[in-house]
């Protein structure tokens, strides 16, 4: 409010709109969060979480397979199927959801509304990626909870049955019974399994970053999905396949070059499959987990920057 009265004949000044004249910050976490939150809502409305029902059914079915195996083997099977399914869900969802988001925003014309406001394109990309990763994280946590419940209930059942049968046979000392029970516990619910979930999340994050990069220049969602899945398969197999190719070609220079080009251009997804070892009961090396986290962050930053390079002056 000004202290000086208006001169006669001058009209009263119109109140300025809130925030007008203020410089728009180059980057705002608030805007990124808003876009991420709307992406989560968008994905939830696509009935994404119905997958959890199918997952629960798979876990319950595997938990009730009546095969003649030791309790440790049965627990191991439940874990492998549950974590394998989690892994598939995470990377497949990362591909499909990310591939659909930008084209859907163009189709619904939401993208024009967003980009006509003071929203940087990097904020838009980050928000979209953040939204997809949030849904993946929530789903993985929910799936882990279902899986943990199943493992815990089966483990308790096996432990009491094993204890009763060993006690009844009267051939074993208390110490020996406890040793046997600890073998079952090794395949049961352990805190390390949480790291296996994190490994699946790392893999899904890299897949989502690569897919968002592809979707910035792809002409259709279908193209993005197909190419992303192909890249995923090649990224998984190239380490295994390259030694065979080289072997069969007698280490030809052409094959060597091809293997190097693939290695440089396509992410090594197989590296992110370290959840398999954890699920099998191997000890977790925390330094390696941190380094894998760092590598994931590296992939996210680089692929987001590359996406921005394509997306920054793209006309819609």
């Amino acid at each position: 409010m000004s202290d000086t009265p208006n001169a006669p004949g001058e009209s009263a000044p119109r109140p300025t709109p809130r925030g007008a004249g203020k410089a728009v910050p180059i980057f705002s976490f608030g805007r990124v969060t808003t876009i991420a939150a709307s992406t989560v809502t968008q994905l939830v409305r696509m009935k994404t979480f119905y997958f959890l029902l199918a997952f629960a059914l798979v876990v319950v079915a595997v938990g009730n397979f009546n095969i003649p195996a030791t309790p440790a083997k049965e627990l191991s099977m439940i874990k492998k199927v549950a974590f394998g399914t989690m892994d598939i869900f995470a990377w497949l969802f990362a591909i499909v959801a990310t591939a659909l988001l930008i084209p859907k925003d163009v189709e619904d014309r939401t993208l024009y509304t967003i980009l006509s406001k003071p929203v940087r394109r990097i904020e838009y990309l980050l928000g979209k990626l953040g939204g997809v990763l949030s849904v993946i994280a929530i789903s993985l946590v929910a799936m882990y909870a279902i899986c943990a419940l199943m493992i815990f209930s089966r483990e308790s059942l096996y432990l009491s049955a094993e204890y009763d049968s060993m006690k009844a046979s009267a051939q074993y000392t208390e110490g020996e019974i406890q040793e046997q029970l600890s073998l079952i516990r090794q395949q049961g619910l352990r805190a390390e399994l949480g790291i296996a979930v994190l490994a699946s999340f790392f893999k899904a994050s890299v897949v989502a970053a690569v897919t968002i990069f592809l979707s910035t220049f792809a002409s259709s969602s279908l193209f993005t999905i197909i190419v992303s899945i192909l890249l995923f398969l090649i990224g998984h197999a190239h380490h295994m396949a390259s030694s065979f190719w080289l072997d069969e070609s007698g280490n030809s220079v052409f094959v060597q070059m091809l293997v190097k080009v693939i290695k440089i251009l396509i992410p090594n997804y197989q590296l992110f499959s370290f959840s398999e070892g954890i699920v099998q009961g191997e000890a977790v090396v925390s330094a390696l987990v941190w380094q894998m986290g760092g590598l994931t962050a590296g992939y996210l930053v680089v692929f987001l920057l590359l996406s921005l390079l394509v997306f920054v002056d793209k006309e819609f």
Partner: protein
Amino acid sequence: MKRLFQKVPRLLLVVLGLAVFGLVRAPVEDDLRERLVAANLLLPPPAQGAFDQMSQSALMGTLGGLRSLVATYLTLNAFEHFSTKSWDELRANYLIITNLEPRDESHWVSVIWHLGINATANMEIDTRLPAFERERRFKEYAFQAIDFAERGIAQLPESSAIRLQVAEVYREKLKDDCATARVYGEIVGLPGAPGYARRFYGYFMARCPGREQEAYDYLTALYREGEPQRLPTLIKEIKNLEGKLAIPSPRRIPDGDPDRRPQKASKKPANALPGGIVVP
């Protein structure tokens, strides 16, 4: 700079970015891969033989990072073969499974159990086959189980579960007490070895011709460890050895033969009166 940025084709910049990132990350990833494999968190590529035997879908699954799921599917498939007693197909399945997940102890234990116990038991009772063929296959399955055990132990040298399972094959099917004792002897001292392995080592050593004295010394040492080890079978084995080795009475253990029931007190005659007076 901005003009240069606009002039250079965007695709070229993207490929350049990808290549630079690829060159930077490749040595880091190679190092990480080596350390993850050394920590057993990442599995090394399966042997080429495994790829040759896989079906197309299993191969795709394995290459696509679904190694655990493919192994689990094949385990269920192997169970199907167990139900139909198709032992050769079961063995083929486990050849792939153990190549896919060589560090999963339970696969080795299962295949030894299936071939060494179930398949051999089937050969003992399958009357559709002539006796000589059943005997040939019995031995073939038992030795296939032992072969799997050797490969499993090479992968997991500290596994007591694999050794316990193969010991059962030697003990129950091949009736080879010396080999059984050898395997139980290997188990003693391994991490996670069950406490009874020490006693079983002694029991089967006692039945191995030529090792009776060694077995006697070993079992009496266990006996002297105290009450928890003085189980009826241990006492019985020591008693047997005392007889075989003609151990002098003062050096024998004081326990009675656990198989010999204490004699019941003689029933009082019906005509006995209180005070021991018998009415004729």
